[in-house]
């Protein structure tokens, strides 16, 4: 089975992240950059499928030169190789443009299964799997907390607010996963050393037959026109216990409809 995992490099959500003042895009230069957390679960799931069914796992990243660090790091978990779509025209790409580029790259890779995280910690739009499915004419099974593959179908338990739904589709298909699906492995020292030697193929827009003005800020279908910080949280209610603390606490919770 050929599995492709979409991996995105994002600013570390553990430290303060900012938008750039000049063009309102995510500032990828400031904070440390890491693998989008949810993508690690997708990689783990792909590796487990490879262990159970054989085949190969390829990572697909669209991102700046610096994303190469994250690719090496992701490879140290065990995937066989990676494709890095790298082009000066790409920064500022909107979701439709991103999906156009990823779909073109996926077409060259001919996967049986595409895995990705349910959302990225920077963009959080959750639309990429659907857009890719539309462009590739395959099914999108999103929000998986469990995934099984048999013959030429894939079945997931789709996590919902109330419980879960079981969904099945023919492969090839794209599946996005939540962090409830598994516990990603730590890279072994051998994995870290092996990652250095794994093939990472770089593709440009020209390689994919996409014109520069179809993507990036130039081809964006939407634009963030301004941004401002959320105002600091206001004081809230302080209850000083003068013997009646418990009662007043419950009263407060009742007014907020928690009890």
């Amino acid at each position: 089975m050929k599995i492709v995992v979409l991996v995105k490099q994002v600013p570390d959500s553990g430290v303060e992240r900012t938008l750039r003042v000049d063009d309102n895009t995510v500032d990828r230069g400031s904070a440390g950059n890491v693998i989008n957390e949810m993508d690690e679960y997708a990689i783990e799931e792909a590796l487990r499928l490879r262990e159970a069914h054989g085949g190969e796992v390829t990572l697909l990243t669209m991102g700046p030169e610096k994303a190469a660090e994250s690719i090496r790091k992701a490879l140290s978990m065990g995937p066989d190789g990676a494709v890095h779509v790298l082009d000066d025209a790409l920064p500022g790409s909107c979701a439709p443009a991103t999906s156009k580029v990823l779909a073109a790259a996926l077409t060259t890779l001919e996967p049986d299964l595409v895995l990705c995280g349910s959302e990225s910690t920077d963009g959080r739009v959750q639309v990429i799997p659907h857009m890719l499915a539309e462009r590739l004419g395959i099914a999108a099974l999103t929000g998986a907390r469990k995934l099984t593959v048999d013959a030429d179908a894939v079945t997931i338990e789709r996590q919902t607010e109330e419980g879960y739904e079981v969904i099945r589709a023919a492969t090839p298909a794209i599946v996005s996963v939540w962090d409830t699906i598994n516990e990603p492995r730590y890279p072994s020292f051998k994995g870290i050393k092996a990652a250095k030697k794994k093939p990472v193929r770089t593709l440009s827009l020209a390689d994919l037959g996409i014109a520069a003005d179809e993507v990036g800020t130039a081809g964006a279908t939407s634009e963030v026109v301004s941004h401002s910080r959320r105002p600091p949280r206001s004081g809230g209610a302080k209850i000083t216990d003068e013997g009646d603390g418990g009662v007043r606490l419950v009263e407060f919770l009742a007014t907020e409809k928690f009890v």
Partner: protein
Amino acid sequence: MDFDHTPEQEQLRDAVRALGRRYGHPYFVAKAKAGEHTTELWAEAGRLGYLGVNIPAAYGGGGGGITELAIVGEELAAAGCPLLLLVVSPAIAGTILARHGTGDQRDRFLPGLATGAEKIVFAITEPEAGSNFHRLATVARRDGTDWLLSGRKCFISGVDEAQHVLVVARVEASGRLRPALFLVPTDAPGLTRSPLAMEIVSPERQWLLYFDDVRLPAGALIGGDPQASLPALFAGLNPERITVAAMGAGTARYALDRASAYAATRSVWGRPIGAHQGVAHPLAHAAIQLELARLMIGKAAALYDAGRDLEAGVAANLAKYASSEAATLAVDTAIQVHGGNGMTTEYGVATLLGGVRAGRLAPISREMILNFVAQHVLGQEKSY
């Protein structure tokens, strides 16, 4: 001068840190207080190849150096889980076997050390000899092709967790007693042990060992020849000092992390106590001592991995000295910053006291390092 680790070394650091944090100091303390060992952490770190980073790749190890092993030791300690046996099993025994073991010994023992599945502890200290290794009285006598080992050892860490103990004994060769290293199964007939009661919060215990004519085959002698033993013994010293220093530095980092977080949030006079220089300066001072020690650890490891053993010897001693002093200072300062909370189990800093304090006497005392520096760096007459 290049102060950067390679990307692979940085990745190793990140990976070990993540693993260590999942266990954390409360796990370590709970194991120690229950008289148990950090078996799960050891096994997982072993499976991931972190405990065997320095073991040659041909034997299933990582094929890295002491730099990598020091990174592993430091990061686990910085996560609140200092693993003492990393210093004896992969660092001392692993190095001695890889560099001076016979082919059979390497085949038999290195694969187990590479995965952490087997542990070899190290016994040199004796009640009567102390820091004076010329007085070691554990002796091996020939009996046919076998050896008979007799004597006593004390303070030996982790014997109950290990399959073998690497014993520094002496044998008679051309009328003189010379050091000789033997691999002894911990369940060998004639070997008995009793635990020493120690005031250290640690999952590892120290033991008294009694060897009463323990019969060993010829293959138990490291290198197969008593001549091989002195260089073998020396080969183990630098890795021991560098990794023990790294563990101390990690412990200091852990303590300072806790203390800084506490000082930045604890408020007694309307603003964080860290705003008082009387609180912040000792922390800054400890942080400086720690960073200086880490630099020397990095230097010692780099020299050692470059095969420059003699220079590494000086650097490793300096690193060990600086790190144990910095760790003691950092833990003491962290306790002070925490006020009364500093002495509680919950805040997890006083739990490190015994460990860092022992670091100033073991595996080599600060005085013996000062002796070494006085004599070999400053050219003073030997004082003892």
